[in-house]
């Protein structure tokens, strides 16, 4: 099953990426090459096999750990915002969302 030009555009929108026309065409050709490889997976019988999301699941029961609900981090707002593209009075600036 080959991907179409429209599929690439749809996926780019989902991924919040903007591809130029030539990039969309190149991506289409590369992804179709890639998914030809991926199709090999369908030949493997996986009936009754549980998906493995994480290798730790093979090493026994994995309980999600919770740490004590106490503040463990110092306030680092300035350091955290030092690399932000746009901040003002400790707030991250974004384009207007609500008119």
């Amino acid at each position, binding site marked *: 099953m080959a*991907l179409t030009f429209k*599929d*690439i555009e749809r*996926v*780019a929108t*989902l*991924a*919040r*990426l*903007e*591809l130029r026309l030539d990039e969309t065409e190149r*991506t289409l050709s*590369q*992804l179709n*090459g*890639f998914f030809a*490889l*991926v199709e*090999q*997976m*369908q030949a*493997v019988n*996986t009936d009754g*096999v*549980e*998906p*493995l*999301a*994480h*290798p*730790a699941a*093979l*090493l026994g029961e994995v309980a*999600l*750990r919770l*740490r004590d609900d106490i503040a*463990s981090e110092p306030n*680092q707002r300035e*350091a*955290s915002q*030092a*690399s*932000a*593209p*746009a901040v003002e009075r400790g707030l*991250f600036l*974004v*384009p*207007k*969302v609500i008119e």
Partner: protein
Amino acid sequence: MKNQDLHDLGVAQLAAKLAAGGVSSVEVTQHFLARIEQHSSLGAFLATNPDVSLAQARAADARLAAGERTPLLGVPLAHKDVFVTRDFPTTAGSKMLENYRSPFDATMVRHLGNAGMVTLGKLNCDEFAMGSGNENSAYQKVQNPWDTSRVPGGSSGGSAAAVAARLVPAATGTDTGGSIRQPASLTGITGIKPTYGRCSRYGMVAFASSLDQAGPMARSALDCALLLSAMAGPDPDRDSTSLDMPAADYATDLIATPADGTSAKPLKGLRIGLPTQFFGTGCAPDVLAAVRGALSEFEKLGATLVDVSLPLTELSIPVYYVIAPAEASSNLSRFDGVRYGHRAAHYTDLTDMYKKSRSEGFGDEATRRIMIGTYVLSHGYYDAYYLKAQKIRRLIAQDFQTAFTQCDVIAGPVSPTVAWKIGEKSADPVASYLADIYTLSSSLAGLPGMSVPAGFGAGGMPVGLQLIGNYFKEAQLLGAAHQFQLATDWHQKAPGAAA
């Protein structure tokens, strides 16, 4: 020994010389900083900060003067640029994070700093650790010190090139699908990817969270053991997937227990499994010859070779390249031009800002993997691709357990060829995924794996032997590699560029 020979010393030797008072950490640090400067054309380093490094060296000298004698005190290293650092920028090899400065240190950086190691700087890598030739760095391609027209491997290519060229005695790396083992193999150094969860991922810029694992890269198994002892261990409050197991003293174990044999046959009783799928026509004859040569050395040391089968080896490629991009597309969604990272100069609204910032900030390979990952997770395709891949992932892990009923460790090549020419594979990025065939299956299973220098192949380029162990068997891998390195000198060979 003159100071200009300091770079010929490994971690253990430097530590011994520092402990004996033969040299100060400041002198060692100055020596390596000068070498980094002198060999900057290799492209291995993305950032240095001599003031910070020398301050750390002075602190180490003070600890030495106070009588502290610990295995890594005063020895320098450098970190792959996916470990966040307060004192150096962290770019992950991406334009997206140009000039990014973390407010905290990664747990690996903190552990090794607490052990008294001096950070010399940050090492180049493929963008977000995605690649196998270090050609996907947004900043500079890295050259292989054995032949500067060739790649050093990737994604930890800067780490590998720096260790091979003796610009650092050791470096950190990360391995998601082979990114420690493959560059170690292609540059003739030693590297180990521990069991998944052995080293904390806190402060590692995330690529594929169920696969990413930190590990040491150095010239010998002994040096890797020294570093791993400081790196491994639980990080319960910061990484929910770090294993709740204390770190072992890998180096002491290494020296104290030459397996259960006599000194002539130190590996007597060790069964080495050779997967038939790792020794087929897909592997270049020069690589196979070096690997087989190393294996006969293991036999001389008392090990026995047995054939095993990992029938889904070829399938590990599509399985990995579905799962890793799926996780990457999710992890990289955090780069939105709001809290950190690149923001486009011109845009119309919020969505347009996201799209333009991300498209400008990500390079080709990161973009490709985000596209693949988004597609396999999207409605209507999730079951056929992502879920199917996760099911085969379990079968791959089970095949390893079947193999380990017949052997103690598994061995084979790391990479099907020696290092290739820079630019040679860039025309068909998807075809280059095929070259990861021998490292992906153990990554999917979460098993520890090593690359050990095993000789040379075409063009005089290094070849690594891969050793794969069962869960938590890092000590066994390091022990086998150490015995091999006591009997051989492949790991001591230095490239001409290191002169």
